[in-house]
C-alpha cells in the first residue's frame, strides 16, 4: 500500500519529530560539544600564548633598555677616559716642548753671549792692532816717531769713525 503523493501522515510526522530530536541531541553531543570544547581550549591556549609573548616582549624591552643604558654609560666612561688620556698626553707633550724650547732658548742665549764676548774681544784686539798699524803708517807718513800715548785720543776717534762707517 502506498500513501498519496501529497499526503499528510500523522505517523510519519511523529516519527520525524522523534528522529529530528534524536539527531539534534546526537549532533549536539557527538559533534558540537567535543568540537566546541576543543575550540575553546585552543582559544584559551592561544590567549595564554599571546599573553606569554606579550610578557616576554615587555621583559625583553626592559632588559634592552637596561643594556642600552649600561652601554651608554660604558661608552661615556670610555670617552671620558680617552679625553682624560689625551688631555694628559697633550699636557705632557706641551711640557716637553716647553722644556725643549726653554733649553733651546737657554743654549741660544749662552751662544749669543759667547758670541758677544768673542766679538768684544776680537774688537778689542783689532782695535789694538789697528792703532799700532795706524801709528806705524803715520810714522812713515810724518817721518818721525809718534808717541802712541800722545795720539791715543786721536787714534781712537779715528777707529771709532771707521767702525761707525762699517
Amino acid at each position: 500500500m502506498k500513501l498519496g503523493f501529497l499526503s499528510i501522515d500523522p505517523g510519519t510526522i511523529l516519527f520525524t519529530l522523534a528522529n529530528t530530536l534524536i539527531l539534534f541531541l546526537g549532533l549536539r553531543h557527538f559533534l558540537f560539544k567535543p568540537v566546541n570544547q576543543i575550540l575553546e581550549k585552543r582559544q584559551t591556549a592561544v590567549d595564554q600564548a599571546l599573553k606569554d609573548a606579550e610578557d616576554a616582549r615587555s621583559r625583553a624591552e626592559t632588559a634592552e633598555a637596561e643594556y642600552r643604558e649600561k652601554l651608554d654609560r660604558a661608552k661615556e666612561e670610555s670617552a671620558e677616559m680617552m679625553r682624560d688620556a689625551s688631555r694628559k698626553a697633550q699636557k705632557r707633550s706641551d711640557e716637553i716642548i716647553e722644556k725643549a724650547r726653554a733649553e733651546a732658548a737657554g743654549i741660544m742665549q749662552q751662544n749669543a753671549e759667547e758670541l758677544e764676548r768673542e766679538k768684544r774681544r776680537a774688537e778689542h784686539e783689532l782695535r789694538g792692532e789697528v792703532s799700532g798699524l795706524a801709528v806705524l803708517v803715520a810714522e812713515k807718513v810724518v817721518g818721525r816717531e809718534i808717541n802712541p800715548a800722545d795720539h791715543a785720543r786721536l787714534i781712537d776717534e779715528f777707529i771709532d769713525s771707521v767702525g761707525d762707517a762699517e
Partner: protein
Amino acid sequence: MAIPKVLRGPEKLEVSGPKVIKTFHLFGMKINFTETVILEWIVMAVILLTAFLLTRNLKVRGTSKRQAIAEMAVEAITGLVRDTMGRRWLWFTPYIATVFCFSIFGSLISLFGVRSVTSDFSVLLTWAAITFVLITATKIRCGGVKGYLKGFGDPIPVMLPINVLSEISTPTAMALRHFGNIAGGSIIMGLIYYGLANLSHMIRLQVPLLTVGIPAALSLYFDLFSDFMQAFIFIMLTMVFISNAGPSEDAA
C-alpha cells in the same frame, strides 16, 4: 536473448507517496510506519556515524584532517547562525545543523535509487511546524501572551484574518517550497528516465542505452544543486523568521 528485467528500464511511470510498511493502532489512532521513516534512520545513522568518526581523539594542537573537517563544519554553521540570528541564538546552532544535514542527506539519498526523505510532505511539515512553534514561542516570550494575541489585530482589528493567514502561511510555504522542489525534481528525473527508456526502445535498443549519461547532467541540477539549495533556503528561512520574531539584538 532475454534481457534481465533490471536492465530493461522503467516500464511505467508512477507518482505516489511513500510505501506503508506496517500499520498499527495506538489509542484508537492509525499509525503508519512508512519507508520514509526507515530512510530517515539510515540518514541519521550516516550523519551520526560521520560526526562520531570525525570527532575521535580531538587534539588542541597537531590536528588530523578529520578534526579539521569537523572544526570547519562546526565553525561554518556557527558563523552562519551568529551572522543571521545574532550571538544570543548561538545555542540554537545544533538544531540548524540538524535540519541542514537531515535535509541534505535526506534529499541526496535519492541518488541511491530510493525515494528521498524530503519528497514526503509530512517530513517537511514537521520541520516547518517546529519552526512555527519556535516563532510563536519567541513572540510570546518577548511580548507576553497578551502582546502576541494583540499582534494579530495590528494595525487595525479588521486585519485579524489576514494576520492569522500570514502566520500560518509562513511554515506552510516553507514546507511546500522544499517539498515541491525535491518531489518535483524527482518527478522530472523519473519522466526523463521513462522518456529516454521509451526512446531507446523505439530505436530498437533492447537495453535503454540512452538513459546512460544524459540524465546525469540533469541530475546535477535537480538532485545535487537543488538539494543543497533547498536545505540552505530552509535553514536560512528558519533562522530569519525565528530571530525576527524577537526584538533585534541591539534592542535586546
